[in-house]
């Protein structure tokens, strides 16, 4: 009797699991399926602006799959360049975030509790204002008659304004600024669990501080490094706002290309194909990340 009841009512466990599952289905899987479908259609002057995959001709249902969009992506070098450039920018900004974020996370993890909470809050605090506003603020700082140039001019360090805005420099600056918390937080969560008696043991056994760091701290925080890097790398590859607002005409990133295809050219099928390829490119690091996590779980 008691065993039958759970069958009739969904258990708490099933409800709990189904929430993220449904989220995944409705907000990731279905939209992606739609995009995937559009990528096989052709551009058309219609609403929505693409041809249908299924059509009825002479009472027979016909499926038309066009690979033309994908072939087009491989023939026009613009796309390859944009992909490569996005990956390059994502790679170097991840590296910069890691180099800046690691010491910060380590320092926060090693401070005592009241100060530690304050420092953590300072890391998160900027996210309380709009992302867009924060990126806009950098325009005000970096532009030719902006805060930074005016300061340098008034100090007599430079004679004419530096071209800071709309360069790769400003893109890197904006990305590192915006994504640094995503690097710091997982690193912090990892480093705070580090057993510091291991460092004492290493020192006791004759390892100098730098050697202890390389042989103990670094390998043991690898999981944090990987998850922080993934949290920066993956969204930066598809980043649109920062290169659009802070980048120059030669800052070619795939997010920007995607936007142009969708909204300027209104070529939804090509834009969809761009999105699909981007996802495929990102699957590689995601799979690597997963494999590492599984290995960690298995120990």
């Amino acid at each position, binding site marked *: 009797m008691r065993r039958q009841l759970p069958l009739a009512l969904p258990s708490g466990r099933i409800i709990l699991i189904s929430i993220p599952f449904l989220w995944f289905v409705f907000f990731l899987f279905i939209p992606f399926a739609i995009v995937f479908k559009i990528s096989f259609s052709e551009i058309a002057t219609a609403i929505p602006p693409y041809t249908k995959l299924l059509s009825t001709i002479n009472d027979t249902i016909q499926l038309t799959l066009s690979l033309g969009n994908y072939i087009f992506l491989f023939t026009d070098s613009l796309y390859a360049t944009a992909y490569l450039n996005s990956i390059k920018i994502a790679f170097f900004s991840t590296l910069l975030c890691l180099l800046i974020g690691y010491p910060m996370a380590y320092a926060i993890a090693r401070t005592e509790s009241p100060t530690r909470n304050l420092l953590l809050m300072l890391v998160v605090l900027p996210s309380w204002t709009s992302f867009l506003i924060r990126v806009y603020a950098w325009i005000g700082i970096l532009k030719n008659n902006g805060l930074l140039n005016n300061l340098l001019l008034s100090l007599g360090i430079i004679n004419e304004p530096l071209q800071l805005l709309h360069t790769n420099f400003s893109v890197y600056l904006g990305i590192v600024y915006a994504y640094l918390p995503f690097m710091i937080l997982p690193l912090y969560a990892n480093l705070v669990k580090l*057993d510091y*008696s*291991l460092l*004492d*043991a*290493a*020192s*006791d*056994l*004759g*390892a*100098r501080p730098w*050697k202890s760091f390389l*042989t*103990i701290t670094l*390998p*043991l925080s690898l999981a944090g490094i990987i998850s922080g890097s993934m949290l920066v790398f993956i969204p930066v590859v598809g980043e649109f706002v920062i290169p659009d607002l802070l980048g120059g005409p030669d800052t070619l990133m795939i997010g920007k290309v995607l936007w142009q295809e969708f909204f300027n050219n209104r070529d939804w099928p090509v834009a969809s194909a761009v999105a699909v390829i981007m996802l495929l490119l990102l699957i590689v690091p995601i799979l690597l990340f997963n494999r590492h996590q599984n290995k960690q779980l298995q*120990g």
Partner: protein
Amino acid sequence: MAEKMTEKPPTATNPAKPPSQDGYVRLQQVTKTFDKFVAVDSVDLKIKKGEIFGLLGSSGCGKSTLLHMLAGFEEPTEGKIFIDGVDMTGIPPYLRPVNMMFQSYALFPHMTVEQNVAFGLKQDKLPKDEVSKRVEKMLNMVHMEAYAKRKPHQLSGGQRQRVALARSLAKQPKLLLLDEPMGALDKKLREQMQLEVVSILESVGVTCLMVTHDQEEAMTMTSRIGIMHKGRILQIGEPKEVYETPNSRFTAEFIGSVNMFEGIIVEDEPEYVMINCKSLENPIFIDHGVTSELGMQVWVAVRPEKISLSKEPPEVKTNSAKGVVKDIAYLGSHSIYHVGLPNGKLVIANVYNIDRANKLEITWNDEVYVSWEPASAVVLIV
């Protein structure tokens, strides 16, 4: 700070003084304060070469701080530490000839047993084949050669301890520090490992300082112990010496259990002393002189195993009292009797069960006499 910088670190060209037997490790007025809290208070200590010395104290007595100062994780606020004649002031942990076995073992979780043991040797830039030879020797010594490729989390508690011991001995330190060596093991394993660790340490001949709060551990494993309380070492001696002739109430009560009678000296002769206690009807007779004076307040300590119980009144009136059995704890090898005296004072007596079979069974609420030999009591002034 500037002074420290000018001091020359000990090197081969700056040879150590000839090793003295009783001061291989020497602590000279070592004090450590944290803000205003005095963790270690002007401690003097000499450890002989090859000796296993135990520092015994409850948590917060400063024993761990002392250990950390020897390892180099903390610098003494005042005083000096010498190891084999070399002043350790300002020498960082990674340059000291000291290794430590941590309470948690602190094995590197991402390295195999072999790599853990090799870690210290690699820091010394020893050639590869030399490292692997030494690692093999160490693992053989602790019977862990079959587990060389395992990671620490694949080992049991006792196996981890063996690895930790092998790792801390691999560099052949001049001083080995053991921090609560058996703290992470269950009771059964603890007894087995205590003897095994001691036999390994003795076969290596390493000088050893061990800190523990477990008196049984300290007494089984060490040749001498120091009782530490509130940052000071109260008494140093062989375990038997400290147990049989404690020099203070604290030591007497800390090591084992004890019956303590507070009293006043009423007869003070060179060959005997009589003490009157409020809690005892009869006076206490001590069969030797005590450096004291008439009317002085003293404490008399009698160990429970030195107290005998009988249903008949003893022939000599001194050193005895009449009471009622309030409680009996049967512990297998012996039983602990709690005897309540008329004024409420509880006297604890251990009765070995080999005796109990022959005697009249004494049980709850029986009227009994507690008594002890004049030589069994210790007079304490502080």
